[in-house]
């Protein structure tokens, strides 16, 4: 009987042990079965907390299920046992109220300190404003050295991969056109908000998840201690393309960061200069093609033939009055997939892409749009 009981417990134990082995093996690198410990001290503490509570549950579970299976095996009618009639014991009841309570207190202590840690926003060395949009993220660097640096970060996976006409790349759905770049070993404070509905900014390896709520600004922070590329996704249902607004964070060395932010700033300054400039048709067409291919072709087709959006070739809007065309480009068509690009493209790019649409694909309108026209249209 004893042997049988042992065999029985081995039977129930083995899947649990395999599972634990799997979890532990996975822990070393980014695992596909367990929480990643990640590259921040907080994240590693959270991981420790997670493993502690998991083990407590496993042990309690083994005891409870062990007793239960023992009973199922031995106390069955087919073995000729008669039921005893006991049905009360105040002592036992008090014991199994108190013991779990004490265990919980033991867990509550580290949970509290970790939580206080997560809530310590002091002494951040860099501030980044994160804004959730349907369905992309915008990053703005708020301190002096990053002044004017802001950009949108869009899903880069092509529709052809999503709709299975092309094989899927390694980082399918977890790749963006322009990742967030932050320096290593630096406490970065994120101010998180949203422009339309609620989103949530989640990067497991940085142990950050914070809701992005329109009209409110949430705080959170991270301090990555390893250079690398970390990927995450929006975690709060935000409408149709909630599954398609990934996050990529590029943690780089401090030098590399200084270089990158410098070049971004130069770029921003350049755009500022360009805003005041007048361009020739050729210049606008060249720039416009680039913008079109990046931002519009996915819906309007590489040759303006249409797709998810209507055709641009011979489109009544693109071959109609300039003002109407600017209006659609800048403010979008509410209630359709045609979003407002006014906040996403700078005035130079907007001028270029509108000019391009009016003069490419056989739309030979011959007119051209300057950045100042876009600026004036936005002002109303």
């Amino acid at each position, binding site marked *: 009987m004893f042997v049988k009981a042992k065999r029985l417990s081995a039977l129930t134990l083995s899947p649990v042990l395999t599972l634990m082995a799997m979890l532990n093996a996975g822990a070393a690198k980014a*695992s*596909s*079965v*367990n*929480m990643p410990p990640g590259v921040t001290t*907080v994240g590693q*503490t*959270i991981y420790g*907390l997670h493993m502690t509570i998991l083990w407590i*549950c496993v042990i*309690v*579970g083994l005891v*409870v*299920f062990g007793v*239960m299976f023992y*009973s*199922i095996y031995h*106390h069955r009618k087919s073995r000729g*046992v008669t*039921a*005893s009639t*006991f*049905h*009360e014991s105040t002592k036992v*009841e008090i014991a199994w109220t108190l013991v779990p309570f004490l265990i*919980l207190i033991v*867990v509550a202590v580290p*949970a*509290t300190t970790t*939580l206080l840690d997560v*809530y310590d926003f002091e002494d951040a060395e860099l501030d980044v404003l994160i804004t959730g949009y*349907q369905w992309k993220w915008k990053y703005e660097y708020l301190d002096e050295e990053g002044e004017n640096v802001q950009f949108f970060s869009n899903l880069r996976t092509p529709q052809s991969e*999503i*709709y*299975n006409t092309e094989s899927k790349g390694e*980082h*399918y*759905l*977890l790749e963006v056109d322009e990742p967030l770049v932050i320096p290593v070993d630096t406490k970065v404070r994120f101010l998180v908000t949203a422009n*339309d*509905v*609620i989103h*949530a900014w*989640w990067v*497991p390896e940085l*142990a950050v*998840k*914070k*809701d992005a*709520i*329109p*009209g*409110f600004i949430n705080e959170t922070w991270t301090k990555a201690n390893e250079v690398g590329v970390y990927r995450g*996704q929006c*975690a709060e*249902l935000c*409408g*149709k393309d*909630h*599954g398609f607004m990934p996050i990529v964070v590029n943690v780089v060395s401090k030098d590399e960061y200084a270089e990158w932010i410098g070049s971004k700033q130069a770029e921003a300054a350049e755009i500022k200069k360009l805003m005041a400039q007048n361009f020739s048709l050729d210049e606008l067409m060249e720039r416009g093609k680039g913008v079109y291919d990046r931002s519009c072709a996915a819906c309007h087709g590489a040759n303006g033939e249409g797709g998810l959006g209507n055709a641009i070739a011979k489109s009544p809007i693109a071959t109609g009055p300039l003002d109407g065309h600017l209006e659609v480009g800048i403010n979008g068509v509410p209630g359709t997939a045609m979003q407002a690009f006014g906040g996403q493209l700078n005035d130079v790019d907007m001028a270029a892409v509108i000019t391009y649409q009016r003069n490419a694909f056989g739309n030979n309108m011959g007119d051209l749009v300057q950045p100042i026209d876009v600026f004036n249209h936005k002002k109303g």
Partner: protein
Amino acid sequence: MGAHHHGPAKGLSRWLFATNHKDIGTMYLWFSFSMFILGGSFAMVIRAELFQPGMQLVDPLFFNQMTTLHGLIMVFGAIMPSFVGLANWMIPMMIGAPDMALPRMNNWSFWILPPTFLLLASTLFMEGGGPAFGWTFYAPLSTTYAAPSVTFFIFGIHMAGLSSIMGSINIIATVMNMRAPGMTYMKMPMFVWTWLITAFLLVAVMPVLAGAVTMMLMDIHFGTSFFSAAGGGDPVLFQHIFWFFGHPEVYIIILPAFGVVSQIIPAFSRKPLFGYDSMVYATASIALLSFLVWAHHMYTVGMPVAGELFFMYATMLIAVPTGVKVFNWVTTMWRGSMTFETPMLFAIGFLILFTIGGFTGLMLSIAPADFQYHDSYFVVAHFHYVMVAGALFSMTAAVYYWLPKWCGRMYNETMGKTHFWISFISFNVAFFPQHFVGLAGMPRRIPDYALQFADFNMMSSIGAFVYGLSQLLWGYNVISTIVAGKPISDEKVWEGAEGLEWTVATPAPFHTFETPPQVK
């Protein structure tokens, strides 16, 4: 209707004008089974789309409508009405009452439901599609950004809530006033106790839900800004209101299930329930605590740290009475004389899997860890362990346990056991891997996912298909029992079953306890 009627009315009017608790219970049960099939078929669409990475079958917006309607229909259309149906059938028979206290209201609270859910399902065919904002319908996705059909959704929630409130008032009135002489509160069967407490929870929180959807309605149509920061409101306010309803709601779902298991485990252990008093107190304290933990669903919204701590401690505390219940069930089995007919198998399945769901609940209660778990598939796994393997397994056990009493025929035991084993295994194949993908970083409510989640998702889909199909076996078993099962006539169908419901004839006659029994 005269004072002298002995049997049911004929034809359709028997059902349309039903006031008999058994007839109404039967209608509730069939209604919820049909909703279970409908909501289940939406789940099959979800799992089919998630079978492989890439978009294959539906577009993302339709996918969101499927997850939303799946959740709404399962919670409000399948699980809740099924337990109300069970309450209708069993509570009068368990407390020795001739019927429910308010039989006409009983009719009304049932008949509201079919049109309500017809309306809700019909939103799928409306312009802009049905609700696509999740069963938790967070504003402003469900207000400013919702399809026009949201107005019908709001109306539907109001109607479902009305039905629940009337149902619970009826249960409260019945239990408080119609107990047989000698049936003191502390002699009531656990199922009656858990339902009494559940009914109070329902009466307390359904109006809160009604308030939330009314505020949505005002925001959408009458220019208010309860949930819009642009007008001075707050989207997070919505979540507080929703979860003040929502967390008690999860106990509304599970407490009657606790009650069922507390009937079945003693019956097949041939031994009285261990710690009856502490079971009652544990249930009551779970119910009270459930009003104090709502914001554990909102750890990431940016609450002040004091709030986080309060809700974390309160939530951890709920694990204590929950633990007491589990220990009591196991101890009831201890040194019993057990047999393992289908109801017992499902009750044991419940016990194991609900405990696992409780463990993950405990993990989720740890706020800093929840920053990683929240809104991931880990949460999806958690609540399916408590809602499917908890509430639904318990409901399944209840049907097998009382069906012979209801219709005087025995179900096919082999088929029942087969149903259990397929359900138990496929449920775990479907939902256990979701813990892994959730921990590894897969968010919930997404129609497509990164490649590293592919294997577990495929496994999960296969498990879900098998689970879904195997429920048809259940339906088949029940129907074939009703039309052609082996007739039985023993009052006490199960050797170890205790309680007044086993003292009436089998099948239970249309009217029972017209003169109240004396309880010693």
